[in-house]
């Protein structure tokens, strides 16, 4: 059995490393944290980290709440929600970007990282006089995805329909790692 196939690929390796920005404590004086001494202090720091990580994930919002751009509170870039699916033959990534023009979405691949970015512009239509509700978010958005080894980067296709970008990536057969026999002299 090929266990490597079962292991979930970490698509968000890149994203996690870039979002480790200093946490803003608004309206609160942050004292420079002393390096922890002793096991108790260390444990406390670990607990703090655990909580931070938990709430970081929490900001993503529960599945299917439809809250567009959930991670938008923590930093300036909006983070549209995305789904990743996989079949034997290909990977499918869909991203929710309502109200974004096709030309305003850019997909880039560099160093095995797929960057989906763009700009959601506010509709400027007819002399809008005043507003009653402003619930939708506007601005730049970006998502980073680390591509798995078996994704065929040359055959990526993307479609745009009803405000959802769907990216399909064929999976290629990985070359078998060469087995080297070492002779015992």
């Amino acid at each position, binding site marked *: 059995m090929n266990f490597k196939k079962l292991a979930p690929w970490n698509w968000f390796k890149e994203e996690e490393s870039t979002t480790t920005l200093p946490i803003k404590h608004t309206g609160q004086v942050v004292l420079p944290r002393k390096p922890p001494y002793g096991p108790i202090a260390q444990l406390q720091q670990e607990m703090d980290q655990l909580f931070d990580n938990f709430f970081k994930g929490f900001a993503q919002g529960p599945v299917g709440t439809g809250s567009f751009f959930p991670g938008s509170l923590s930093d300036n870039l909006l983070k549209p929600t995305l789904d990743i699916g996989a079949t034997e033959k*290909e990977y499918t990534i869909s991203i929710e970007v309502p109200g974004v023009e096709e030309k305003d979405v850019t997909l880039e691949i560099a160093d095995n990282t797929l960057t989906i970015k763009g700009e959601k512009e506010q509709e400027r239509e007819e002399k809008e006089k005043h507003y009653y509700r402003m619930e939708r978010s506007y601005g730049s958005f970006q998502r980073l995805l680390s591509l798995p080894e078996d994704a065929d980067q040359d055959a990526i296709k993307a479609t745009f329909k009803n405000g959802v970008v769907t990216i399909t990536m064929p999976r290629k057969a990985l070359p078998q790692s060469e087995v080297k026999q070492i002779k015992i002299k």
Partner: protein
Amino acid sequence: MSEKTDIIKRETTVPEYSSQIPAIRPVVDIYENEDELLLFADMPGVAKENISVTVDNGKLVISGVRNLHRPGTVTQEEFSDVKFHRTFSVPQTIDVAKVNAEMKNGVLRLHLPKSEAAKPRQIKIA
């Protein structure tokens, strides 16, 4: 067995929609200008034919069902099949007959024109 059922009585026990998929409120922007009220609702992934907009008795109901046909296993899910549903009260001044809607890039755009009587009028002094 004689069972009288009033044809115009609404069956309250039977849900109107299947509750298989979660229902959520789409986020909206609402603007007003001299001629009309403008409503934008984010409903990504909903096909045009799966949207319904009704204005009845001063109540505007927008709803849409998102059916994402995704093959294979889903390894990461941040959004899923949902039913968008939201109700608004619209003022009497709206000309219901002239309401029109369009769908573009997953955004429902509703134009609710004001009736002629409600528009601001300049009265000339003779």
